[in-house]
């Protein structure tokens, strides 16, 4: 335990930073890679390098975390502030699955899961993650074994079934924050239920970590989480300018810190840097794409394995995705946060999440975003792997067009499994959609 802790602290405070410095030096010596002259994109964001460093360090620390500090595997919408205040190292299987998706590893990992009986009809994040666990493989080098699985149903019920499987596999406790779906407004007893579960979570997490929650530390983490959420919101809001200084596809990647490092100072430092860069670009009219003629809203998760191709196709046709409901969800949470009252604040902000709210509210949100970001059209990714995000999209598409005057396209795909997507068919639909704007 002491040796593991020493390793972990060494990596965290010395090894990781040193490695990042080394990588930075190497990059500086290589010189900046200029984009191809015919590239439809604007100059790349300088912050990308820092993002890579930040996330690489997170995964690097993770390799040495188990046995050194308590480790929790948590869902992206979990109120992680409580765990962070107790010194947990958190691993985000969704974030990790996305990493696998970008690297097109899902078929290999999913095959392993399918072989033991997990259907291909299940969420491809879950299949990727479970397959990775079964194969003991990860592009991140190594994931620390969890001491605790922490799941919140505010994004879907799928995560609960998925984490039940992980709990069986690892033989560790699963704590659940069950957030009743919000039809209209969250009822008083629904809020009380979430608060009660947060108290129960605290007791379990304290037992596993062998520590008591320090109220001052919890307040500090809650403050940092709130500040991080606001900063992320500021980054996104820069795209209300014309041209937008980055693309929605960039946002899909830059969301990683607010998901995985929320409540940490390093997350906020990163977003301060990013927002400064975005403002600089806005001030100089530097766009995410060279020529932004049409602005689009994206609904649902990205198609991780196809981000490059799709963003290029859109950019070549002068279309930029300037806002996405997915990345906006982490900014939206800030409106209900009150860092001076972490438990009540968490009950509120983690219940009112886009996927835990009714379709009326979703339509209202999409219409508002469409107006604020002055979009000309919307792409609704009908995601085979994400039922809660996709149910209602047929109506949303029609209503966005009828009520908000936003031309909309439903694009059937999958967020992680390229076997469930036909690139040719997808591109054909996209091209036909774009032609409609001429």
């Amino acid at each position, binding site marked *: 335990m002491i040796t593991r802790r020493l390793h972990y602290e060494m990596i965290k405070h010395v090894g990781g930073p040193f490695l990042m410095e080394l990588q930075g030096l190497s990059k500086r010596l290589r010189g900046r890679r200029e984009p191809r002259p015919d590239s439809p994109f604007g100059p790349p964001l300088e912050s990308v390098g820092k993002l890579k460093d930040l996330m690489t360090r997170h995964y690097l620390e993770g390799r040495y975390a188990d046995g050194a500090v308590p480790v929790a595997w948590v869902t992206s919408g979990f109120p992680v502030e409580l765990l962070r205040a107790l010194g947990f190292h958190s691993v985000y299987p969704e974030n990790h699955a996305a990493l696998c998706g970008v690297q097109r590893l899902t078929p290999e990992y999913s095959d392993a899961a399918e072989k033991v009986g997990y*259907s291909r009809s299940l969420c491809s994040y879950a299949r990727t993650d479970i397959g990775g666990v079964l194969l003991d493989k990860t592009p991140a080098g190594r994931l620390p074994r969890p001491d605790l699985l922490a799941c919140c149903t505010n994004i879907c019920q799928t995560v*609960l079934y998925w984490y039940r499987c992980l709990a*069986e596999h690892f033989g560790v406790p699963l704590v659940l924050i*069950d957030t009743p*779906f919000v039809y209209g407004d969250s009822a008083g*007893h629904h809020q009380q239920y979430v608060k009660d*579960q947060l108290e129960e979570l605290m007791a379990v997490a304290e037992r596993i970590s062998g520590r008591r929650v320090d109220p001052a530390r919890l307040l500090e983490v809650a403050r940092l989480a709130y500040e991080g959420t606001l900063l992320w919101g500021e980054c996104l809001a820069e795209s209300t300018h014309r041209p937008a200084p980055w693309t929605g596809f960039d946002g899909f990647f830059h969301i990683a810190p607010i998901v995985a490092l929320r409540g940490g100072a390093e997350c906020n430092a990163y977003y301060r840097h990013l927002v400064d860069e975005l403002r600089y670009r806005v001030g100089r009219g530097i766009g995410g794409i060279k020529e932004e003629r049409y602005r689009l809203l994206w609904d649902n998760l990205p198609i991780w394995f196809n981000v490059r191709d799709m963003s290029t196709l859109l950019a070549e046709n002068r279309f930029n995705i300037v806002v996405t409901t997915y990345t906006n969800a982490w900014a939206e949470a800030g409106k209900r946060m009150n860092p001076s009252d972490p438990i009540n604040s968490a009950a509120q902000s983690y219940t009112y999440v886009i996927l835990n709210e009714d379709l009326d509210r979703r339509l209202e949100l999409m219409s508002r975003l469409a107006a604020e970001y002055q979009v000309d059209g919307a792409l609704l990714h009908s995601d085979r792997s994400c039922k809660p995000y996709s149910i209602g999209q047929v109506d949303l598409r029609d209503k966005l067009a009828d009520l908000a005057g936003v031309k909309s396209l439903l694009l059937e795909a999958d967020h992680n499994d390229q076997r469930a997507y036909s690139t040719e068919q997808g591109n054909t639909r996209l091209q036909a959609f774009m032609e409609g704007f001429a």
Partner: protein
Amino acid sequence: MRKDYIRDQRSRHGRKVLAVLPIQYPKELLTAMDVVAVEVWGPPGVPRGPGAGRLQAYVCAVARNAVAFVQAGGAQDVDGFLYPHPCDSIQGLATLIPDFGGADKPALHYLNPKGGPRPSSQRYLVAELRDLVDKIGGLFGEPLAPGRLEWAIGLHREIDGLRLRLLEDRRADLPDRALYGLLRRGEWLWPEDHLAELKEAAAGLDEAGAGAAKPKGVPLLVTGIVPEPVTIFDRLSDMGAYVAADDYAAVGRRVVRKPLVVKDDPMETLAWLMFAHPPCPSRAVSLAERLDHLSRLVHRSGAAGVVIHTVKFCEPELFDVAGIKEHFGAAGLPVLFLESELEGELGGQTVTRLEAFVEMVAQRRKS
């Protein structure tokens, strides 16, 4: 017939009628408030009409068919809808229809807690049940009368007792198709009417006595969501197999097997009952608990094989398949996994797989 019955319940008995989506809901509460629950499990067949395309093809057929059915006016005779919360698909439906249209009726929601009983979820469930009482009372103008809930709990316990007996004491003169037809009438009959039918069937068993013929053939445990298409029972019978133990969410998982724990407050008794149902993945109880329950069913019934018969894209069920296969595989019990989409008839390929499975299990029994 069902429509006529519903109209009769409203006009002759003055009862209100709620169309109820799957799976778990406090039926005792509805009975206590003189509300007939008519469950909407699809219905089976190809969804047609203007609502057929509102949900993508990768959403489960129970939800897809329900939208089409409701929007086509299939539930015109009810006074409102009750949407429980078993999964993301029904949850989506519970906002799609009320918010974006499809049925011009009030919508009530019942959000059952997930996971096993915890202090937080037990308190919450009691509050949620009280909230539902208020909502129903507000909708129909009739509050819950004193003593009615205790009466309804007792009534449903009697029904459960008979349903359990019919499921476990299998007789040749009540074959699968007839048994399931009888049990599933409980999805829409007023409970007292259902009880009368169950009593009649049970009396038939009593008359036959202990010497009555038992079903012959390969005994199977069937677990899944809903026994559709019903012709699966005919096919099983043709193949020389029968359902010795049932764990369908629409049937066996509804039957509370534990002795009733009566609390001072009937609402707490009802909350206890909701947690006492056999383990269902849509409530997200632990897999270990479900496997334990299934093992007991196998042991008690002597089932020689397990058929997992689920609806395609049903995530709660699909996540358990690997664990069930592993568990019974290790115990040397063959497992067959079948998916259906509420078709009117089993597909040829499915029948072939079922046949091969039954033959294999029969051969194993002989050897």
